[in-house]
């Protein structure tokens, strides 16, 4: 007769490099494309090394979450797998990786999904990347009971963090802060005329954020018209004015965003004063995102002119970042609650075989006893006795089963309970060490 063994504790390993453990040069060497991820998952799961695997690769992290198929598999093996797959042995060492087990791995995954572990605290892009990683793993049939549950629990954590805390609130990039400021002055950006001076990365980011907030009347001007046209195509506008002419039309715009680098002053206070006169002093927001500054700072004293430069906008981003940091204890509490729930769910996986054995044992006793009286009673009486026996078994098993499933248990108490139940009911079967 096979001897019953304790089910294993949570067998989840997480290894990876991220912005805490490795510089960008190393992270770049371990970056995986979607196709790379598919290939890697096929290799590790088909080779029976891992029973479940999920690989998350973003610009700030490459992390592997895995349920090993063999007990011998250690984090070092998984690190080597990643390094070998990217042929980065000469550059990346095991020391650049973090290793986490069981609840540590679960907690880290929750922190990653909700943005608490991100380089830009609370950024929401990471959740989409986690969802993509899960989709890829599911499509490659690399996920199973543990990782499916882990991912859904992580999505739930991210949702709770978004709705119950302010970790994702407020602008934390200068270009987004510019839009936030515009929305504090104007009620409806869709009706406002916006001028973008410059067509570089900063101008593009600001334009994208403006589009997200329904701004449609965007006009672009740039020294190089081709760049202006390229940006106009990207943001879906056809309004371009020549660089030499924009000052004469300045009065038409409610919001002016200037992001021309290495040029210096391109709009004087006098030009703005003339524009304000033409627009009957209607409010004008001028956001100077250029370094050095593009707009004469003395224009800030003009009536109804709101002139802000990068340093001013950084005050908004720093304030918002500080507010996000203050939310971390609330986030930690949510993660802890979800971690406990996950552990309890995992514990119920461990007791399932014993519950099955217990029910089988009682069923066998019932059948044995009913067989003894089958010939002495009518079929109707037999059916009634069988029903009665079922009800008694159900009631007798209710307490032991609910005790086993108790959510307050940890791995140690579960083991002692399983031992006790198996001992007093003499459960000894071979199908339990799942």
């Amino acid at each position, binding site marked *: 007769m096979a001897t019953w063994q304790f089910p294993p504790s949570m067998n989840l390993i997480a290894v990876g490099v991220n912005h805490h453990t490795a510089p960008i040069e190393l992270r770049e060497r371990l970056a995986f494309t979607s196709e790379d991820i598919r290939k890697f998952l096929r290799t590790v799961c088909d080779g029976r090394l891992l029973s479940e695997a999920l690989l998350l690769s973003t610009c700030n992290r490459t992390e592997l979450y895995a349920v090993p198929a063999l007990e011998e598999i250690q984090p070092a093996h998984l690190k080597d797998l990643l390094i070998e797959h990217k042929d980065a042995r000469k550059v990346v060492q095991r020391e650049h990786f973090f290793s986490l087990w069981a609840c540590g791995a679960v907690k880290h995954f929750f922190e990653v999904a909700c943005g608490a572990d991100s380089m830009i605290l609370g950024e929401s892009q990471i959740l989409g990347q986690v969802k993509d990683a899960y989709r890829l793993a599911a499509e490659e049939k690399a996920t199973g009971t543990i990782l499916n549950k882990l991912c859904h629990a992580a999505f739930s954590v991210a949702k709770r963090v978004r709705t119950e805390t302010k970790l994702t609130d407020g602008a934390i990039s200068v270009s987004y802060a510019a839009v936030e*400021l515009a*929305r*504090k*002055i*104007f*009620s*409806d950006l869709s009706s406002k005329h916006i001028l973008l001076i410059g067509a570089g990365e900063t101008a593009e980011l600001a334009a994208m954020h403006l589009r997200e907030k329904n701004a449609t009347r965007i006009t672009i001007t740039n020294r190089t018209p081709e760049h202006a046209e390229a940006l106009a195509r990207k943001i879906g506008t056809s309004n371009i004015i020549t660089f030499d002419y924009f000052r004469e039309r300045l009065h038409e715009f409610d919001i002016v965003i200037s992001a021309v680098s290495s040029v210096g002053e391109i709009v004087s206070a006098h030009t703005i004063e003339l524009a304000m006169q033409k627009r*009957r*002093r*209607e*409010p004008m927001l001028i956001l100077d995102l250029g370094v050095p500054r593009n707009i004469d700072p003395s224009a*800030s004293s003009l*009536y*109804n002119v*709101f002139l*802000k430069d990068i340093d*001013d906008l950084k*005050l*908004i981003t720093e*304030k918002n970042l500080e507010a996000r940091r203050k939310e971390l204890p609330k986030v930690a509490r949510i993660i802890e609650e979800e971690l406990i729930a996950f552990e309890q769910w995992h514990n119920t996986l461990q007791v399932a075989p014993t519950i099955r054995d217990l029910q089988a044992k009682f069923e066998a006793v019932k059948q044995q006893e009913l067989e003894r009286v089958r010939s002495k009673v009518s079929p109707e009486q037999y059916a009634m006795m069988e029903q009665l026996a079922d009800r008694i078994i159900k009631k007798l098993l209710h307490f032991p089963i609910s005790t086993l499933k108790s959510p307050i248990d940890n791995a140690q108490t579960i083991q002692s309970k399983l031992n006790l139940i198996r001992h007093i009911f003499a459960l000894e079967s071979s199908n339990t060490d799942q």
Partner: protein
Amino acid sequence: MPYMFESLVVINFCLPWLYVLVFVLYIVEFFKSNTFLQRAKRYALAAVSGIHFIHLVLLTLFYGSLPIANVYQLLTTVAFTLVIVYLFIELSTGESSTGSFMLLAALTFQSISSLFLFSASPTELNVRSPLLSLHIITAILGYSSVAIAGVYSSLYMALFRQIRANRFGTLFDRLPNLETLEKMSLHAVRIGFIFLSFAFIAGVMWIPHSQGRFHFTDAKLIGLIMVWLIYGISLLLRERLGWQGQRMAVLFTLGFLFSFLSMTVLNLFSPRFHSLN
């Protein structure tokens, strides 16, 4: 109705404290945004406005006329109007961050009313005259509107200064944007100006029928004319010279302060509502 006066006294005493309570809820929620508090403060304000309505009904039943017969009855009616208009704004727009400031105005009016309600002559004005009733009711609506405009204009000025000075604190986070505040105060002033115009015309038409008790040099009538002129000139400056933003906010706030003073401080020197004699 038994115990009517006693009930009136109790409610009159409790109302300012109830407004203090709701004001505290609104101000705490303003600084510490919280879903539970957000709901609680709205229910609390609805409940207090219900009690305030009962107060006005009891006043009407007890004195046998609408509670517009002396300045303190008028002040409690203005406070109630403010709260109801604000509740309508909050429920229809979902915007509740200006509530604490609006409640501060209502609380001030109600506190003055509660303190002196029973010390003033309850039937100083003969409100059975239709012209006088029209004058008083339109004046209440007009003063309530300019009070709302005053609150929104003050908030506009506060937010304007915060933005100009790069102080991106709680006011910056919680208040509606400048354009919305300006629009709300402008709408309130336009409506208030129309009501004040009616109040002014009805008041002037009623004076010959007042049997000599009131005359054209009446302090409150002059006060009303001054308030009407401030708002009239403000609107004219906006239309003709394109004044807007902070300049208009300053004018609207001054108009509100002047109208408040003409309703309260002038009364300290006046033995009767409409007379300095």
